[in-house]
């Protein structure tokens, strides 16, 4: 039995295998429509989410399985003070696989240590969000053909953006990747991402506060939202929330085949006018996420199609 807590739990070969399965699901959906018949996915969401929870649930339904859903901490025993371990143990009596989102970092790991069914980290605080990374990698692969020889820019909140941390860690294992980190000084990536991930893997990277100056060199631009829920101080949030807003004007110097990604939800950091630009890939990412979650569920449940 395996879990997915951190994107590094999966080898590059396993990532390739998941992406191959996801591509096969896109081409032959009917083959997979009964693959998880009789299996149940429990989505335990202790923090609000629309996209991730519905994506997991849609993924399981499209595999012919069923879903047990807990949509908020208020509607669970967590509101009565139940521990993550106890909640997970209880749910493991009903379900075959758990997808858990929790505001506390490390909560899905705690769950996985206490149950005998697979646990998927669906986001833990500002820490990790590996299934978003699966969607990001799959989107890059589908848009660029291969995940190699790419300059990838990350823009916005790089400090608390868990999707950024997971994607950088994942990309560090591919060849020819260059990273450009674009953020206000207050929201730069944590130092361990630079020392333990980028420098350790000899990944060339640069840090800047100026998006326009680096725009022409980017193959991928990964935009992020400044997340209100990660700030303890509203003043800081208000000061930084509009730091980087992508508008059609700013794309004038960008490559014709740039791919713009965003983990969503978007607030105002990408102007709606960009949605019709063929370089906008963020809604494709949403769809790709569902296919990668289907592939992941199949792998963790060891279902062969």
């Amino acid at each position, binding site marked *: 039995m395996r879990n997915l807590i951190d994107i590094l739990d999966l080898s590059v070969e396993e990532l390739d295998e998941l992406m191959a399965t996801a591509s096969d699901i896109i081409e032959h959906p009917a083959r997979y429509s009964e693959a998880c018949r009789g299996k149940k996915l429990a989505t335990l969401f202790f923090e609000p989410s629309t996209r991730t929870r519905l994506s997991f649930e849609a993924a399981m339904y499209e595999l012919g399985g069923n879903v047990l859903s807990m949509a908020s901490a208020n509607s669970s025993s967590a509101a009565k003070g139940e*521990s*993550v*371990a106890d909640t997970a143990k209880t749910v493991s009596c009903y379900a075959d696989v758990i997808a858990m989102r*929790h*505001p*506390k*970092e*490390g*909560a899905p*790991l*705690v769950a996985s240590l206490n149950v005998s069914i697979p646990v998927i980290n669906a986001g*833990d*605080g*500002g*820490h990790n969000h590996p299934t978003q990374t699966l969607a990001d990698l799959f989107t890059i692969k589908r848009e660029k053909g291969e995940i190699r020889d790419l300059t990838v820019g990350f823009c916005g909140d790089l400090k608390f953006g868990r999707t950024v941390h997971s994607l950088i860690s994942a990309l560090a294992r591919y060849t020819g990747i260059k990273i450009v980190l674009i953020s206000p000084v207050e929201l730069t990536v944590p130092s*361990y991402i630079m*020392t*333990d991930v980028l420098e350790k893997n000899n990944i060339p990277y640069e840090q800047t506060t100026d998006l326009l100056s680096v725009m022409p060199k980017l193959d991928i631009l990964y935009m992020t939202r400044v997340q209100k829920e990660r700030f*303890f101080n509203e003043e800081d949030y208000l000061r930084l929330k509009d730091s980087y807003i992508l508008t059609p004007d700013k794309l004038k110097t960008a490559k014709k085949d740039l791919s713009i990604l965003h983990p969503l939800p978007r607030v105002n950091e990408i102007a709606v006018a960009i949605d019709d630009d063929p370089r906008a890939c963020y809604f494709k990412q949403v769809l790709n996420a569902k296919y990668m979650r289907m592939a992941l569920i199949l792998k963790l449940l060891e279902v062969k199609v």
Partner: protein
Amino acid sequence: MNIDSIKNGFVIDHIPAGCGMEIYQLLGLDDLDCSIALIKNVGSRKMGKKDIIKIDCDITFNMDILGYVDPGITVNVVREGKIVEKKTLDLPKKLVNVIQCKNPRCITTTEQELTHIFRLTDPEKRVYRCFYCEAKAK
């Protein structure tokens, strides 16, 4: 300054100056009844200044705590007034219930019964990270 030699116990030597009190607290020496001496800023040829702790009773303590504070610390085991063993330390690969995670978003801050675990992620820089949230130990 005269401090009696001990009969049965331990001399924790080569503690970096200023770290004696931290070790005193981490080892929970406050709870012991026996004679304990914490000597600060002792002159040392090797270290310039060092701290020393003498414990005049036979207790068991977590050597990982000492290794975490400084692997250069030595522990002399004293029996009947004589040093019978000199223990050297390694930087522990894992710390269990030695330090607590300071990240306010870590699951260990709300679930008190969880074991506090830190793993050595960079031996060269002596970096320990929380097993749960990967925050660096402070």
